[in-house]
């Protein structure tokens, strides 16, 4: 993506996030998703935008996110991805009250990384792999750790079901759209448009199912 010509070069991280949120609403992108008239043009533009990662299924309109039907109905508050050393590489808020700023989300993510490690030390039985579910008074936190140590965790309503499936699906998206992206540097913050789009789709489907209940 290129910045508008009159934008200041350095921006606060907060503004940058807001900008990335706005990218979804850009008319050009919307047209691209909703208007499947000329597929060649779509394909070419998609290649340019996402640095080479194409998903044909998605371009045809039959989305990858169809699998979200099995995730059940639940409101998700936010999603975090942290790398194996505890650094936050992806944070997305889906409408929780009192959104955290960038610094706080970084702190919370690295604190979770440490708590996850300490919980393994305190296990009364060997073979502990860390916290899978934290039940707080007003939310549930589900965590999934991949074999390479990347942790995915989602903050959702208390009692939400099938969050393990959602996290595994996010992991699948991560491997497809982030790790296979040749311009992505390992352990660095995720800035991949196709990942964003597919993730939003998956989570929105979840939410639509929840609201229509």
């Amino acid at each position, binding site marked *: 993506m290129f910045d508008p010509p009159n934008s200041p070069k350095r921006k606060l991280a907060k503004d940058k996030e807001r900008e990335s949120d706005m990218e979804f609403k850009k008319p050009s992108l919307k047209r691209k998703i909703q208007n499947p008239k000329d597929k060649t043009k779509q394909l070419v533009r998609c290649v340019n935008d996402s640095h080479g990662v194409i998903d044909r299924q998605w371009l045809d309109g039959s989305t990858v996110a169809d699998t979200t039907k099995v995730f059940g109905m639940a409101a998700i508050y936010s999603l975090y991805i942290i790398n194996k050393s505890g650094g936050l590489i992806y944070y997305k808020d889906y409408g929780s009250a009192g959104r955290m700023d960038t610094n706080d989300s970084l702190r919370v993510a690295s604190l979770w990384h440490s708590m996850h490690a300490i919980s393994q030390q305190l296990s009364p039985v060997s073979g502990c792999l860390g916290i899978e579910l934290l039940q707080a*008074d007003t939310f549930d936190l589900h965590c999934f750790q991949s074999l390479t140590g990347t942790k995915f965790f989602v903050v959702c309503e208390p009692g939400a079901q099938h969050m393990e499936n959602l996290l595994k699906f996010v992991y699948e998206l991560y491997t497809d759209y982030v790790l296979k992206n040749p311009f992505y540097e390992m352990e660095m913050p995720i800035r991949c448009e196709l990942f964003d789009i597919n993730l939003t789709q998956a989570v929105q489907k979840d939410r639509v199912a929840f609201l229509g209940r």
Partner: protein
Amino acid sequence: MQFFGGSEISPSPPAPTASGNNGHMMYVFNRNGVCLLYREWNRPLRTLNAQQDHKLMFGLLFSLKSLTAKMDPTSAAEKGNLGMPQLPGQGCSFHSFRTNTYKLSFMESPSGIKIILVTHPRTGDLRESLKYIYNLYVEYVVKNPLYTPGSPIRCELFNTTLDQYVRGIA
């Protein structure tokens, strides 16, 4: 390793037996972080010495509580910085967490007494049981005239009743 085949990834211990005896251990801390009581029923793995273990447990609970207080997605009120000291009952707390090998249930009384029960991962909601254990503490420890508040609990009657009760629930 099979990730999406629907099989369990994490090896978990065998399912709880019907006869009970699924409680691993229990901690009671006061509001200053002093371990008043440590009971152990079934703990094959010990990585640290007792004192270090208690400190680590208290630290874990303290930090998890500041994490949940900061994360609380339902209140828009200003929550202060991460790690701001919270009074008991203030801010969003948590009542349990689960790993593949154990489940930890947590309760904090308004006076800052923390009761922690570690059980098999597949035990259900233990909030009521922890309240009952708190009642036992009040009856057998607080009402004991020989007990000085803030010192480790050495009440035979409390220990036996507790052992019996935990064997019954977990």
